[in-house]
């Protein structure tokens, strides 16, 4: 991923900064530029989401995504955050037979990958069962 593209998303990836619409009060993550519910009537402001949620569904990935080969097999899940939005995240520090739908998780700061040995290191969020 190109450096500027990653850099722009640092607040979102490191700190779960999304948006809240001043009009309909819905919390949005990942961030958007138009409230999908209110469109032009929406008033989006930055909002930092709480780092707690629960697992809605999961899969154990054996054929890993690029950059995740050293972690295969790993657990990938869709998490519903306490503030409402859902996100997709790897569940780290989790044995592949330990994950269940409904598990409570917290969002933690982990190394996501790198642009090769000479390139930038990507950090971001993963989920971890509490």
């Amino acid at each position, binding site marked *: 991923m190109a450096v500027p593209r990653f850099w722009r998303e*640092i*607040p979102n990836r*490191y*700190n779960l900064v999304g948006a809240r619409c001043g009009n309909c009060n819905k919390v949005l993550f990942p961030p958007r530029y138009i409230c999908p519910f209110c469109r032009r009537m929406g008033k989006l402001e930055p909002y*930092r989401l709480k780092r707690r949620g629960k697992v809605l569904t999961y899969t154990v990935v054996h054929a890993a995504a690029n950059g995740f*080969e*050293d*972690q295969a097999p790993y657990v990938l899940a869709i998490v519903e955050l306490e503030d409402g939005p859902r996100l997709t995240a*790897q569940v*780290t*520090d989790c044995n592949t037979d330990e994950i269940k739908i409904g598990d409570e998780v917290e969002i*933690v*700061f*982990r*190394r*996501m990958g790198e642009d090769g040995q000479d390139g930038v*290191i990507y*950090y971001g969020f*993963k989920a971890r069962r509490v």
Partner: protein
Amino acid sequence: MDVGVVGYGVYIPRYRIRVEEIAKVWGDDPESVKRGLLIEEKSVPAPDEDTATIAVEAARNALKQTGIDPHDIEAIYVGSESHPYAVKPTATIVAEAIEATPDLTAADYEFACKAGTVGIQTCMGAVEAGMIKYGMAIGSDTAQSAPGDALEYTAAAGGCAFIVGRNGSKTLAAIEDTYSYTTDTPDFWRREMRSYPKHGGRFTGKPGYFKHVLAAANGLLRKLQLTPQDFAYVVFHQPNGKFPLLAAKELGFSKEQVAPGLLVSKIGNTYSGSTMIGLAAVLDQAKPEERILAVSYGSGAGSDAFSIIVRDGIESKRDAAPKVLDYVGQRVIIDYATYAKFKKLLVK
């Protein structure tokens, strides 16, 4: 000095490899190793952890204790021997991840295992001078050791963050004073662009660790006109389980004073995190008015000694974040093959 600890936080990865497992690979006698080093197992970072991620979790835990606005942290220093980048500071990654940016100064430190405590001293000076309101010093490492080297039994991973500020309602312990002893002693080093450190074997003992630790401790005691009996606890840098006990004995401290801050047998040597994690473990249980002596050691070489007095109100503050023993107790045993994969000794 009128500075103190506003909050502290720790993080230790959950994976552990036991001495027996490493000894099996190299044909060592595990009982000899355990007897010689007084260590049972060490922590191993997961493939998606590094010094920065460990530092961030420790920093976030420290903030949980304090309730301060991260924007009031006006200096962040991260000390490590395993910074993710050779050039590009870990401190800015931490600063961003705790939302302390942009009104602050930040930098990384290197001084082997005392790079974290050096940061504490820098923060103390800046706070005392009125230059900053709060400063954060972090010691964090994912130590590397050459396969088959004696260090493989102890080189571990972990981190600790201390927030320093002026004494007041926000501080849970006062830092009475600090004293450092520094010489140019090449006992343990790693050259630029090489993967593993080298060391002088037995030379790391008397001329290295003991000379500096004892001198720093005695220097501070002299400065403050105190004796070991004035302290409830003493914490040393913990490269293995033996050195801190010998240092304590030499200085006139008892086993009971050392024990609560001695964690190496369960988590290994967390390098820049070592002394700070030991100090955090003591603070997790210390009572107001108790005095703590903490003495770090960094090869190269130097030692930072601190005298810390616990204040009222610490009990409620320290319950807000996970304690050291919570992390020590959270463990997943792995075998050498998994260890090698995690440490990227085996790469697909």
